[in-house]
């Protein structure tokens, strides 16, 4: 479980509700406060207005995709860690992920427990 006191916030963005649901359920079980969104519109504003420790974002979404969101997060120097998730990785997306320095990336299907484990490692290696 995450530390008691104020819960850490995680934003999960994926156009597939089943994916946001299962990630949210897993993270909530682990003590995080989770916000979900189904496309990239408005996500960066939300990240600016509240403190989030992690942004989990799908690459391919209608209206505004994950790469555009990450570019804005990086341009705005927001302190949130970024986890890219994707159901179909092509070489173009892969090089964009590298250039934009995502903190972690998972190709679907992946185990939400693996994501949690990586998140704990990340939190341990970069304390607040």
């Amino acid at each position, binding site marked *: 479980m995450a530390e008691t006191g104020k819960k850490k916030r995680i934003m999960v963005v994926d156009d597939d509700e089943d994916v946001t649901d*299962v990630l949210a359920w897993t993270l909530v079980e682990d003590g995080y406060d989770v916000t979900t969104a189904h496309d990239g519109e408005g996500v960066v504003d939300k990240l600016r207005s509240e403190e989030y420790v992690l942004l989990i974002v799908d690459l391919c*979404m209608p209206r505004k995709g994950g790469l555009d969101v990450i570019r804005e997060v990086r341009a705005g120097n927001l302190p949130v860690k970024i986890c890219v998730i994707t159901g179909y990785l092509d070489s173009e997306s892969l090089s964009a992920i590298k250039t934009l320095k995502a903190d972690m990336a998972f190709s679907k299907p992946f185990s939400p427990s693996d994501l949690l484990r990586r998140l704990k490692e990340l939190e341990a290696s970069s304390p607040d």
Partner: protein
Amino acid sequence: MLEETPLDLQPGNAVGEDELERLEGELRQSQRLEAVGQLASGVAHEFNNILMAIGGHAELVAREGGPGGNGRASLNKIRELTRRGAALAGQLLAFSRRETMELVTVNVNTIVKETARMLRKVMPAQIDLESFAAGDLGNARVDPAQIQQLLVNLAVNARDAMPRGGRLTLETANVEFDRDYAGEHSGVKVGSYVMIAVSDTGTGMDPRTRERIFEPFFTTKPAGEGTGLGLSVVFGIARQHGGHVWVYSEPGHGSTFKVYLPRVEAEPEDKERQDAPADEGLPGGEERVLVAEDDNSVREILTHCLKGCGYQVVSAECPSRAESAFRDDGGIDLLVTDLMMPERSGRELYDRLAAESPGLKVLYISGYTDRALGREGMLEEGSAFLQKPFSLRELARVVREVLDAPPVCG
């Protein structure tokens, strides 16, 4: 896909007709391969999402140590997700159309009229549906079920383009394509065609959208509201019948899809279909029907259709809401219920309601076959059952039969 790229031929470079045909064939083939590639990536994306969610929920159940508490909710999610996977497989089959076509020579007007009648029952009230059938329309050799599916897909597309209502028009006409026309339009062969046009007064499309609409998994609809396969299926069906589809659309000025099917000289052979009285309504009644179905679109269609048949309909998206609605109403004659729902099965729902009201009748619906459900013990032998997908005519007929059947004793 609509405007195929013109061949870049230098002036003075003589190219024979055969050569040109071969090059065009190669171009079409490369475009087909592109579509297959797009399909593969779309399917991979969809299936990976489904597998991801199934795996994640399985982990949650394992963490809970069994199907108690939230574990039960996860198991229900897994069951829903497998249905989503099965539905995707069904759409892929419709796209690839590997199954044999059942071709019959028909007057296409009969299919258009029948489809228009069905659509009138299910279209939102703010959409007016008009149908204009050419009196002298020629015949075509088609699989009527596939042409009906093509029309329904176009109508659904039109409905979604008119969120604030509008007019949906179906019309038919005979069309001749001469050598000049075929020369200017790639993929079109000289000959006589039957044309079906489906027009809407909706939002219309810009050129970029128009060029991509037949690509598998291309969708402009919000997440979760479209698979992006509907118009690909339209394209596939038209092509498989030796026909083609053209679309005319401008932003703000609606869209018209024209489907051309090769005309044949033979007389209609499907006598039963031709002889069906054009304006025969669906069987109906005034009884009170409770619809329990967790899939929003299926529930809406069932409700619209049954209301259109004169029934008084109450609907619920889950068994617990269905139970409250049943008690609040107090006079339900028939329960139409999906068998697989969250919380509890349609059969459990009926058993609970019938314990309170023994005269209650039931019609089960499911995407599974009655045989498979019988094997799983989900369906009692002799229960009234409709397997999805079913036609609205079939639904209206079976509902009437169930209501007219003598009550089951014991």
